[in-house]
C-alpha cells in the first residue's frame, strides 16, 4: 500500500510534466526545454507573493506569470525560427530555460522557501495521505482524460495534428495556426505551474524543482512523444521504478529515469506507445 501511494504520487507528477511536453510537441514538433525554467520562476514568484498577499492572489499571479512565460517562449523562441531546422528550436528553448533559471537564482538567491497550501489529511489503508497528494492524483487523472478527449475527439486536436504536419497548409485551410501554437505553449506552462505548486508544497521550493521538471522530457520520450496514453504509461513505469529504487539508493533514484530512457531509445526508439513513423519527422 505504501509503495502504491508513492508510485501514484510520483506517476502523477511525471504525467503532468510529460503532458506539458507532449502538448507542445504535438503542435510544433519541438521539445520545450524551457519548461523547467518556467516552473522554477513561477514557483518562486508564487511563494514571494504569498508572503505579502492572500494565497488566492499569489496563485493567480503565479498562473498569470506561467501563461506569460509560456507565451514568451513561443514569441521569442519559436515564432522567429519557424521553418528553420528542428535543432534551432531545441536550442532556443534551452537558452530561454537557462535564462529564466539564471534570473531566478539572482533574484531569490537559491533559497529554500516554503509554500504553505491549505492542507488536510486522511487515511488510506494504514497510511496518512495529505490532501495535496490527493489533489495531485486528481489533477493528473483529470488532465489525462481531458487532454485525451480533446486530442482524439475535438477539432482542436485535429488542428494541432494538422499544424504540426504542414504549417503552411494548415494556414491555407483557415486553421488559426498562431493561436493554436500559442495556446499549446501557454497550456504547457500552466500544467508545469500545477506541478510546481504541488511539488513545492511537498518538498519546498528549491532549485531542485528545475531538474525535477526535466523528468517531463523523459516521460514524454519514453511514452512516445505524441501519445497521451503513452505518457501515462511511462509516468507509471518511471514512478514505479523510482519508488522501488529509492528504497535502496536514493541517489540512484534520480538517475534511474535517464537509464530507462536510454534503454527505451535503444530497444524501442519510438517510445512505448508512439508510432514508429514519428521517428522520421524530428
Amino acid at each position, binding site marked *: 500500500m505504501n509503495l502504491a501511494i508513492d508510485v501514484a504520487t510520483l506517476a502523477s507528477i511525471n504525467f503532468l510534466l510529460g503532458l506539458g511536453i507532449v502538448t507542445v510537441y504535438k503542435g510544433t514538433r519541438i*521539445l520545450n526545454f524551457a519548461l523547467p525554467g518556467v516552473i522554477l520562476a513561477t514557483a518562486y514568484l508564487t511563494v514571494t507573493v504569498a508572503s505579502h498577499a492572500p494565497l488566492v492572489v499569489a496563485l493567480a499571479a503565479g498562473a498569470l506569470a506561467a501563461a506569460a512565460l509560456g507565451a514568451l517562449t513561443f514569441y521569442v523562441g519559436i515564432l522567429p525560427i519557424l521553418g528553420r531546422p528542428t535543432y534551432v528550436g531545441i536550442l532556443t528553448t*534551452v537558452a530561454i530555460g537557462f535564462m529564466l533559471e539564471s534570473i531566478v537564482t539572482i533574484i531569490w538567491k537559491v533559497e529554500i522557501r516554503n509554500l504553505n497550501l491549505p492542507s488536510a489529511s486522511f487515511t488510506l489503508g494504514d497510511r496518512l495521505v495529505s490532501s495535496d497528494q490527493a489533489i495531485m492524483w486528481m489533477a493528473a487523472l483529470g488532465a489525462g482524460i481531458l487532454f485525451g478527449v480533446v486530442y482524439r475527439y475535438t477539432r482542436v486536436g485535429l488542428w494541432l495534428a494538422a499544424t504540426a504536419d504542414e504549417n503552411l497548409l494548415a494556414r491555407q485551410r483557415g486553421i488559426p495556426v498562431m493561436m493554436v501554437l500559442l495556446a499549446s505553449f501557454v497550456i504547457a506552462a500552466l500544467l508545469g505551474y500545477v506541478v510546481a505548486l504541488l511539488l513545492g508544497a511537498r518538498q519546498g521550493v528549491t532549485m531542485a524543482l528545475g531538474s525535477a521538471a526535466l523528468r517531463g522530457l523523459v516521460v514524454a520520450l519514453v511514452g512516445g512523444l505524441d501519445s497521451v496514453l503513452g505518457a501515462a504509461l511511462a509516468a507509471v513505469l518511471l514512478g514505479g521504478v523510482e519508488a522501488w529504487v529509492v528504497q535502496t539508493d536514493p541517489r540512484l533514484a*534520480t*538517475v534511474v529515469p*535517464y537509464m530507462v530512457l536510454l534503454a527505451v*531509445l535503444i530497444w524501442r526508439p519510438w517510445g512505448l506507445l508512439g508510432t514508429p513513423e514519428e521517428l522520421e519527422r524530428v
Partner: protein
Amino acid sequence: MAIAALVAAAIVPFVFDTYYLSLLNLVFIACIGAIGINITTGYAGQVNLGQAGFLLVGEFVAGAIAIHIGAIWANFWIAAPAAMIAGAAVGVIVGWPALRVRGLYVTLATLAAFFVIQYLGLRYIEYLQQTLKTGIDIKLSALDLLFMTVSSERSWYYLLLSVTVVVIVAATGLAHTKAGRAWQALREHELMTEVMGIDVAHYKLIAFAVGASLASLAGMLFGFYHHSVNPEAFTVEVSVQYLAMIIIGGMGSIAGAVLGAAFVVLIPYGLEWVLDTFNAPSQFLIYFSAVRLGVFAFLMLIFLLLEPEGLIGLWERIRRFFVLWPFRFQPLEEKRR
C-alpha cells in the same frame, strides 16, 4: 602568415604575465573541447547536451592514471591517448541510441547519458574518498612530458598551444575527408544522405567518437591543469557553455569554434569587470555563475535568432562590406572565377 602567427604565439609568454597566460591556457583547453563538439554538433548536426559528461571522462582518466597506477605514470604521452581512447569508447556508447533515432531524440539521449556518467563519476569519487582514503580533495600530481614536468604557467602555455594547434590541423583535415563530407551531408538531410548510399550509422558513430575523444582530452588536460579531480565542476551548465561556444562562434566552422571558445572563456572576466565598475548589487557577484549562465543563454538566443552563422558569419559580412564597398554584391564575373 601562419609562421608569423606561430612566432608571435611563441613570444607571448615573455610579454604577458602569468594571469593573462592562465586565461589563455583556459581558452586553449576550451578550444579543444569546442572543436570536439563542433564535430558532433556543428558538422554532423547531432545536438549534444552531454559534452560535460565527455569532459568528465577525461578527468577521470587523469585521476585513474595518477591515483591507481602511480604518479610516475602521470605522463602526457600515456594520459593523452588513454583519455582519447576512453572518450571515444564512451562516445560510441552514448552515440549508440543515435543510430536508431535522430533530432531531438539524440539531444535527450546525450543529456540522459550525461546524468548517468555524472552519477557513476560521483560514485567513483566516493569510492576513492572512502576506500582509498584520498581525502575530500583529490590531488593530482604534475603532468610529466618525459623530458620535462609541466608545472609553470609558461610550460602549460606551450603544451596547450601545441596540442591545440595539432587538434586544429587534424580537425581541419578531417573536415575535408570522406567522413567530413558525410557529416555535413547528414546534418543537412539525414534521410537523403542515407539514400545516397552513405552509411549514416557508421559516420554518426565516428562523429560521436571523435567529438567525445577530443572532449575527453580537454577534460584530462583540465584535470592536470587544476591538479584535481572535481566532478562537481562539470554540470549541465558546462554542456550549455560548450554549445554556446559553437553557436556564438559559428556552427560547422573550426575557426568559429576557436573564436567562440575564446569568447565564452573570456566574457565572464569582462562581465566581472563590468559588474565591479557599475557597482552592481552584491547578489550579482555572489551568484556570478548564474549571471554567467544567463549571459551565455542570452547570447546563444541572440545569435540563433539574428546571426545563425555566428561571429565568423558576422566577420565575413563585415569584411565583404568593406571589400565590395560601394557595391553590395559581388560582381558576377568574380563569382564565376
